[in-house]
């Protein structure tokens, strides 16, 4: 996904001289093509993320379209005040890109995990929070983000994510896509965990449980029309995200849900627990630690489906 991002932003910058990339001393070689085609619009800002975000605001307010790129915690939590005041308060059209989101950098330890980014960025007025599930969807979202008139956060995985979305899905920021229809259960997913959700859905289908899968690539603005639709149709819904249980997609849906008329839907959350993961391991190991696996989703949904 990270290579697709570099490729797409290079393509877009060639056609739009307002695009500038600001990087926080990461992405060795990743932006070589960009540098070759739009060299003066690649700015290595060093390891100084607060300054980088403030400068992005200044560039945006001067007519440029800055795209800020570094490892997720450093482009979100590290410079949150700059995002809040310099970017969002000024409604500056800055595109904030975090690479290695969720548990992608499990082996680097909790300083490099990011399970709070959706939660905190979602609190900011005017911010769009986009969590692409595959490289192709990231490309569609990046194009759309450049057409927005305000800040957009793009939550990238790392590399090698399989393509699961359909390029003719009529992508729109803020509008969920239905990946698969079904009668019994609805699984709602955001971000790169989507293939795991689809695998769980496959297994449920084998057991005769018919599953609808919704891809909420945008967590903010939340597609409440789609939520109304699924919450009237299903009495068992699972929300899956590679993010903390607090404040992510599950949090956003819950906030919306309690303001609706009484409902009798059972809601299950599959997310990262409220702990720092002290053990080192691969992304798969870390996902497994928190039950973010096809097996666990399958088992929990099946059980909940049985005792309806």
């Amino acid at each position, binding site marked *: 996904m990270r290579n697709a991002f570099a490729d797409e932003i290079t393509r877009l910058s060639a056609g739009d001289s307002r695009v500038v990339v600001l990087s926080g001393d990461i992405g060795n070689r990743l932006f070589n093509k960009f540098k070759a085609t739009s060299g003066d619009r690649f700015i290595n800002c060093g390891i100084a993320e607060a300054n980088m975000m403030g400068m992005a605001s200044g560039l945006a307010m001067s007519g440029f379209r800055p795209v800020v790129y570094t490892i997720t915690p450093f482009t979100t939590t*590290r410079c949150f005040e700059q995002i809040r005041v310099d970017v969002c308060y000024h409604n500056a059209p800055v595109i904030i890109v975090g690479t290695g989101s969720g548990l992608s950098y499990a082996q680097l330890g909790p*300083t490099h995990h990011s399970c709070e980014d959706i939660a905190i960025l979602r609190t900011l007025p005017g911010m769009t929070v986009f969590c692409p599930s595959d490289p192709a969807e990231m490309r569609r979202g990046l194009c759309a983000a450049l057409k927005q008139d305000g800040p957009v956060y793009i939550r990238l995985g790392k590399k090698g994510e399989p393509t699961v979305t359909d390029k003719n899905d009529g992508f729109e920021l803020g509008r969920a896509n239905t990946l698969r229809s079904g009668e019994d259960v609805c699984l709602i997913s955001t971000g790169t965990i989507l293939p795991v959700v689809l695998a769980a859905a496959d297994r449920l289908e084998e057991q005769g449980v018919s599953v609808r899968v919704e891809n909420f690539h945008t967590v903010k603005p939340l597609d409440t029309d789609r939520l109304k639709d699924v919450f009237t149709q299903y009495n068992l819904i699972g929300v899956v995200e590679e993010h903390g249980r607090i404040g992510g997609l599950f949090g956003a849906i819950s906030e919306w849900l309690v303001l609706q008329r009484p409902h009798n839907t059972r809601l299950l959350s599959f997310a990262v627990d409220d702990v720092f993961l002290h053990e*080192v391991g691969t992304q798969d190991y870390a996902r497994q630690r928190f039950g973010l696996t096809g097996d666990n989703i399958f088992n929990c949904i099946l059980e909940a489906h049985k005792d309806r």
Partner: protein
Amino acid sequence: MSNSIVELEHISRRIRTRIVENSHNTGMPHLGSCLSCVDILTALYFEIMEIDPEHHRHGTRDRFVMSKGHGAPALYQILAMRGFFPYADLVESDHKGGGVFGEHPPTPDHLPGIEAATGSLGHGLPIATGMMLACRLDAQKNKAFVLLGDGECNEGSIWEAAMFAGAQKLENLVVIIDYNKWQATDRSHDIMALDPLPEKWRAFGWSTYEIDGNDMTQVVDALRNVPDKTGRPVAIIAHTVKGKGISFMEDDNNWHYRIPTAEEVIAAKRELKVET
């Protein structure tokens, strides 16, 4: 401790050998970053610091904070060799699921000898400044040594702490800058106006020393000099070579990320001329 310079240099070579081997075995990157600071770590842990691996939480111990947390693989080797935990723990740790030796140091609760979990650059110095403030409040004389990367000095938080410690005259606070002239993607000078580094620290109220940070005699001499008579905190600007000790890694920043092949491990060992 009283190790001769020759003994300390021998320890450094063994540590370098282990770092390279471990990188190959676990896939942990940042070899260049680790190799540039080995001599500084060896001097601190085998000569300078008042520490006792048996009582690693003892209140009056000297503190070391690896502010450039991606140097963790070097720190793990030093701590093991100094006896904070068995070398076997490190070698046998499961990097793929359940181990404690990640690419950045875990918290002190998870590994003896670690004083702070770092990895996000620019945090170690403020934490160590707080530790020295605590020592002052407790009327204790122990010191804190903080290793910073030159790239890490891009961070505003470093200079916030520097200004504070300078004003407060935290004389037992010692910063060592691993000045290897590279950061992750470029020469540090091409990204930020770092130079003149000694003058910057002096302007913030620190005493400064400039040394060759890969020359054991100079490293030990400089570290023996603290606290200095001025009552100011001390910044040692240690000129180092990224990838030091292995000819084909020296000053080649590809080794910020690259993992050595089996053949490269053999070649490195041949140059270092010691077994692990």
